[in-house]
Every structure is written in C-alpha cells, then in structure tokens.
C-alpha cells in the first residue's frame, strides 16, 4: 500500500498539501490540545519569553523593577511585571465606558475599559483598551496597565520613624487645565483627595497626603493623568539626600554605559582581531 501518494513526502512535514487527519492525531498524542481549557494560570506558568529582558527575568537575574527603571529599559512583555511583582500586583477596573459609532445599520458599540494596577508599595500603572467585548477590553487594559508601571517615591512628613508614608515634598502635576498639587501629610491624615485620584494613590502605596486641585476636574481623564504626572515627578525632584554622587552601573544590555565608549568601535576591533588570528 502506498501511503502518502497524493501528498508529497513521507509522514510528518510542513508541506503545502492536505493535512486533515494527521494534525489531530498529533495533537492527541502530544496532549497539547488539552491545555486550551486550562485557564489563565497555565498560561502564566508556560510563559516563553520573547525578548532578552524577558529571558533575564525568567532566569531570575533581574529580581526588582528598579533594575529595569535604572537603565530605562523598555518593558515589552507584561509577564515581566507579573513575575517580578507577583501576587502583590492588584488590578481594578475603574470604568467601562461604551463608545458608539454611527453606521448605516444603527450604532456600533464598543467598550472602553480603564484599569489601574498597583502593588501598594511604590508601583502603579494605568491602561486603557477599547474592544467589542467587555472581557476583551478588560483583559487588554490590564496588560497595557502592567506595561506602563512606574515607580513612586515616598518620604516623610516629619520625623523619619518607620516606613515612608507620604510624598517626599510638595509636587504638582498638570494635564490640560487640571493641576493637582500633593502636599506631605502627617501620619494618620489619610489620603485627602477626590474619589478617583484617591484610588490611584491607594494603589501607589501612599498612605497620607493632602491634595489640592485646580481647573476643570470634572474632566476625569485630565484629572487622573494629572495625578499620574504628579506621582511620576516624585522621582524627578532633586532633594538634598540625593546630592551624593552615584556610580554608573552596567546595564544588562550594554557593555559600556559611559559616554566615551562607542559600541560600534568595539565590534570593529573584534573583527580586526579575528582577521589577524
């Protein structure tokens, strides 16, 4: 009996031809299809990193987000943040907003999801995603939020006892017409802010703060963006304790971080050496 008469080749191959029965048989044998119904837990365990940073994180060479922030490395895979922050990372859907588009056959509605993630200990992220289904939008927004996680600096109001609990200094952020000003508060003051920025500050891990806002805070989009901007500025402010000089550390991606060394020159030197040898 000739097997594979019409199809080219013998047995399993990628080929351009009909592959109806064989694919299913393989799947049963390897047990790969059964993983579909496993749910999200299995996907996280089975994360195969696609970028070099992802591989470093999976290996365990990078254990804190600060190592990534220090060198301004772009985080492209949300599993990186998940792996590093682990179960402390909480997410919350702030709002699901239906947006509509007029078509000949009525209105086409899509849903826009706003999700804020944070670990309550100095890291927050915000994600926005629009999709035809609510679940897809929420999932997409969570992923985008994890990709946009930024660090938040906390300090003291007065005596430096215990852990930092408030913003280190008065900072202000602006977006559109809204300006948000955050002022350090003593312990026990709690977050004195409007409903939506209070949520963001809770996720950031700030325990006490006085806020003051100006402008059209009715526009929630600008309001939240302004608080974000404010939180990002906490690490941009040069306070006296940062006056000491710090040494540059080697980025995991670059051999040289000082401005004098040029990477292209290093490659040419290698080539010259090999040719000589």
């Amino acid at each position, binding site marked *: 009996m000739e097997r594979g008469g019409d199809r080219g080749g013998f047995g399993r191959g*990628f080929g351009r031809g009909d592959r109806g029965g064989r694919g299913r048989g393989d799947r049963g044998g390897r047990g790969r299809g059964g993983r579909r119904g496993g749910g999200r837990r299995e*996907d996280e365990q089975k994360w195969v*990193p696609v970028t070099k940073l992802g591989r470093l994180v999976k290996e365990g060479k990078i254990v804190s987000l600060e190592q990534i922030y220090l060198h*301004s490395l772009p985080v492209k895979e949300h599993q990186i943040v998940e792996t590093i922050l682990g179960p402390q990372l909480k997410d919350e859907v702030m709002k699901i907003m239906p947006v*509509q588009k007029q078509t000949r056959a009525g209105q086409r509605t899509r849903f826009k999801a706003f999700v804020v993630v944070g670990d309550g200990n100095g890291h927050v992220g915000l994600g926005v995603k629009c999709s035809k289904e609510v679940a*897809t939008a929420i999932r997409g927004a969570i992923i985008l939020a994890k990709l946009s996680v930024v660090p938040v600096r906390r300090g003291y109001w007065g005596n430096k006892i215990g852990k930092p609990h408030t913003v280190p200094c008065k900072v202000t952020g602006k977006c559109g017409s809204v300006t948000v000003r955050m002022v350090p508060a003593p312990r026990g003051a709690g977050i004195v802010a409007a409903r939506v920025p209070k949520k963001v500050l809770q996720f950031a891990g700030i325990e006490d703060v006085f806020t003051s806002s100006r402008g059209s805070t009715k526009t929630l*989009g*600008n309001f939240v963006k302004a608080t974000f901007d404010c939180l990002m500025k906490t690490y941009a402010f040069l306070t006296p304790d940062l006056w000491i000089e710090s040494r540059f550390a080697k980025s995991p991606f670059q051999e040289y971080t000082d401005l004098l060394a040029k990477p292209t020159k290093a490659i040419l030197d290698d080539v010259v050496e090999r040719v000589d040898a």
Partner: protein
Amino acid sequence: MESDLRSLRITSIEKEEEDEEREDFGKEGEQEDDEDDEEEEDEVEVTLGFAEKPKNPRLLLRHLFPSKAGGVPAWLDPVDLPAEKSFTCGFCREPLQFLLQIYAPISDKEYTFHRMLYVFMCPSMSCLLRDQHEQWKRTVENPCRSVKIFRCQLPRSNPFYSSEPPKRNGTDIPTITGAPLCCWCGSWKGDKVCGSCKIARYCSAKHQSLHWRLGHKIECSKILNLSETSASCIVNGKAKVRATDKYASNSLWPEYEIIIEEECTFDSEIPEYNRSITSLAFTSNRIDETYQLLSDKFEADTDKKVWASFQERIAKAPEQVLRYCQDPAAKPLWPLTIGCPSKADIPRCNYCKGPLCYEFQIMPQLLFYFGVKNDPDSLDWGTIVAYTCLASCDASISYKEEFAWVQLYPTATVA
C-alpha cells in the same frame, strides 16, 4: 446632512453637549474602523512548530525525514553537501552553526516529493549586526550574510532513500552512508584530514584547532598507537549510524524535535460573562469626552499596536518557535514596525530568477529553548523570516541558497 438638521432644531444645552460628544466619537470611531478591518484580514492557515525533546535521538536521523532544531543537521542529500564558501559566515569566516531544519514537501510537483529547508547562522551577535546592513542591499551578486537558508529536494525515487515510507518501528536504516562529516561540528563536509592520525576529519582549520585543544591532542597519539579504529569521532563504512557522540563540539545548540500543530487548534473560547457588565454599562449614558485625552496618553501608538497584535497572536500558543504558512499571499507576523522589508527589498531566486515568497519564520522563543545566554553580546533576534523560491526550482547543485530576513530588536540605549 445630520448636522444641518441639528442646526435647525432648538435644543437644550445638555442635549447639545451630548450631540457634540457623539460627533467627536464619530471621528474617533473612524480611526478605530481601520483596526477592525485589519483584524478580519488574517484568515490564512498557519502551522506552528514547537520544540520538544525527542523521545529517542535516533528518531531524528535523516532517513526518517525529521524536522528538528539544534544539534547537527540531518542532510537529505548526504553526498553533495554545501561547499566551503557557502557554509562560512560572510564576516568572520567561521563555519555557520546549525539552527533548525524543517521537512516541507510540496505535493504538486514530482521533483519536490522530499523537500528540506535548513537554516544556519553564525552564533556571533556582532556578525548578525553587520548582516543587517547586508540584507538591505539590493541586487548584490554574491551577498555575504551570516544567516543562510538551504533548500534540498528529491523526487520519490532517488538513490538515497527507498520509495516506500519508513516504517517508524525502530527497524529503519539508511540505505547508504553519506560523505564524511566534520568531527567537531558534525554539520559540514569533512574534507580536511588530521595530519598525524589521518583519520579525524574536519571542515575547516578553525574546527581542527578547536578539537586539537579540547581533546584530540591526547586522542591522536592513542589512535596512532592502536591498529583498530576505536576513537569516538570516527565514521566508518558500516551502515549502522550512531545517533550520538558523532561530534565533539561543546558549543552546539541542544537538540529538539519540531512538533507540528495547526494554529487554529489553539483558538480558545472566551467566556461569555460580559452579559451582566454590558447591562450595567448601558445605564450610564453620559459619555465623558475627555477620556479621549487619557486614552491618547495611555493607549498604544503604531509601534506598540504592532507589538500588541504580535503578542496577542502568539499568546494563543506561547511556546511556538516556528510559523509556517503555505499560502503564497500570506504575510509574516512582524513584531516591530521598523526593519520590515518592502516588496523591492526581497531579491529574486539566484537560480531561476523567479520571485521569492514568504514560507516560514523563526520566533525568538527558540533562543529560550536553546538556553542562549543573556549577556550584552549574546544572540538575540526579533524574528527571522525565510523567503523561498515560489516555484521551488531544481538546479544543478543539491543545496540551493534562499533568502533570509532578520528583524532585530532595537538595542536599548541609555537616555
């Protein structure tokens, strides 16, 4: 037309606001319309390849027509192997290392009954960076690249394999032994012989010096003393082929078998729990237009959108290492927007001058499976796309070179 009607009516202030907002959303909707159209375009069938440890390394020998990654190549045509100037890297002149091979026969032509595609690349990242400049050059007669793809095809009746399919029950053996291979890499033809023992074979001087330093110095004298051939690297005339211990190199990538699955088998069902949330969402009709500004800052721009759709696509099967598409109109899945070739960047076939078309692409998950180190200078790529001759032409040499396009991630720079 609607706006004209609206201007005629006398509306309350609130209603005006709502209408304005809907106009704005109309515009926003138009922008998003493109997204929807693009989503519906991808209907081509894609086959995925997964790397798995083989149950038995003997299953990956050439008479069983394997698809594998890492280790040594299983040459389809064991005699007429590529020549030295084909198998060396264009920049560092070292022999290329075997990355993967796939068995991709084409059913409608007789001479492509057996068809194998081999991918080799230089393991040095600096060569790959230089290769990037080379691949952008058009109309170059002999391009010097560090990534090479070879295609080999045979008709059903050929001098190397029987016309019957292999039984796959452990009793298959190759009919003839091939040309002797290099002792060190096990990949390329071993033309050069060791000067002292005259038995160990090498493909290049570099591999000979490497092997000498890492063990052959001691073995060589032992071989000279013994009359019979008993060293581990010797290929003798017996038909029995040893699967392992055929090569002495310690830097080859670990061997995997490539398992083939269709991408459509991974389409999972999204649970329909959004019904209740939909009803809640509809109660509040007041649309806040300034969420748009928020979305501008926190949503994706084009580069991030391409990356996000790339991630979404591979999330169906995150362990995939290879994507194969048989449709000539298919487009590869690009992770980034920069570094994509246009139609003019893809050259013509070297042999028949016909057009090349996208056949398969290698994903970066393979680096994870190979355990490539993550030093600043170690190998890393975004994707490697293979363009092969559409007609799968037959030429006089057995291993025909095809075109590879490498897309690298932009190197992270300190701001």
